[in-house]
């Protein structure tokens, strides 16, 4: 017993090391994407104010470019819609569909924390459940698709970025839907790849990839990226496809959360397994 106690006393630091390392291992490996988002949130309570201060400061450095981007976006939106289609309402844009009934509305938000260098990237925006944001809503930037909301608190939301190995989007090329998967392979924050595009399809480099009609999260036609490399391997029936994302995730700053007003109404009339 004496010897045991002496041993423990002598090696207390190693025992502590092993125990704490196991705790870390639990934190790192047994949390799934959603639990990690939960951690991000508890972390947010402490640190989001700090990150917001940093964003407030860096905002000024980037203002000119971001303003240009916003102006450009507003200009194209006005050009594409007749004047009655857009109503400005308490910092929420409403985009009306052909029946003149709003289908999607967008909540503008600012990114206050963002990563691009991990395998599973997320970003945090400064709008939460008080602004009507719920889990599984789509998020776009002025350039294109950005991500899907993972978790919300009253004032902040964590969004799974397109640069996340858990993210799967169904691409639509030139108006045709392809039931393949668009995945990120953690090679560069600018590129993704599409798995399983058949060589018989009429696709060329430079084609625009957008969202289709198989998702209720996004309106169809939101750009995802353009095909930057299309290689046909001799011994495969599929193309090797790389695409450049429309959204530049390294300078992501202003995003819009898309709220589908008719989601519940549409889901109610879909077969149960959809």
């Amino acid at each position, binding site marked *: 017993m004496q010897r045991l106690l002496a041993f423990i006393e002598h090696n*207390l630091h190693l025992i502590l090391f092993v125990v704490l390392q196991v705790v*870390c291992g639990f934190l790192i490996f047994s949390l799934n994407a959603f639990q990690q988002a939960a*951690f991000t949130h508890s972390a947010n309570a402490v640190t989001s104010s700090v990150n917001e201060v940093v964003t407030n400061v860096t905002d000024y450095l980037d203002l000119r470019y971001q303003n240009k981007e916003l102006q450009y976006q507003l200009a194209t939106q006005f050009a594409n819609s007749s004047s009655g289609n857009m109503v400005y309402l308490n910092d929420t844009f409403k985009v009306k569909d052909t029946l003149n009934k709003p289908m999607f509305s967008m909540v503008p938000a600012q990114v206050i924390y963002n990563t691009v260098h991990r*395998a599973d990237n997320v970003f945090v925006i400064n709008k939460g459940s008080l602004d009507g944001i719920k889990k599984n809503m789509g998020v776009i930037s002025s350039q294109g698709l950005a991500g899907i909301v993972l978790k919300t608190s009253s004032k902040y939301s964590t969004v799974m970025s397109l640069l996340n*190995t858990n993210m799967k989007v169904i691409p639509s090329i030139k108006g045709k839907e392809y039931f393949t998967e668009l995945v990120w392979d953690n090679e560069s924050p600018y590129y993704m790849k599409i798995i399983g595009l058949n060589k018989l399809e009429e696709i060329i480099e430079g084609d625009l990839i957008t969202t289709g009609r198989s998702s209720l999260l996004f309106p169809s036609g939101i750009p995802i990226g353009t095909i930057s490399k299309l290689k046909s391997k001799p011994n495969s029936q599929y193309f090797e496809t790389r695409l450049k994302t429309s959204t530049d995730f390294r300078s992501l700053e202003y995003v819009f959360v898309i709220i589908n007003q008719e989601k519940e109404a549409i889901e109610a009339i879909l077969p149960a397994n959809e």
Partner: protein
Amino acid sequence: MNRVLYWIVLIALQVFVFNHLEFSSYIMPQLFILLLITLPVHLSKHVQVLIAFGLGLIADFFVATPGIHASACLSLMVLRMGLLSRLDLKEQEANKLAFNARTVGIPSFMYTTIILVFFYHLYIFIIENLGAFNVLHVFLTTLLSSSFTLLLIGFVQYVSFNRLSE
């Protein structure tokens, strides 16, 4: 008192500046580990381990990576114990001095720091990228970030020396 200020300044630098460097996705310097590298040698080993864990958790909180920095800090601390046990530090221990270029001499400090910094960056980048591992990416990120951190450490040591010797 001076030491508390030093800790706060370094953690603030890490949180406000180095976590938000955006000029390259390959450069993610982790300057705050200098706090662990320069920890005084007279502290008992289990206190060193606890400090490493605490600091790691703080770092984790600001970048929302549950456990990665904490785990890396723990391993760094144990590796440091191993490296320091091969140096003769009785004098520093008796005088309760911090481990830095001034107290142990530049060669010993550089040797230990380079090993620890490379180890730390490699460790966190490997764990961060586990889902989709890309050897070249991890290797390059480690190399560039570590070099940048080492430059910063050199700078911080130089500045704090000059101030102290005045």
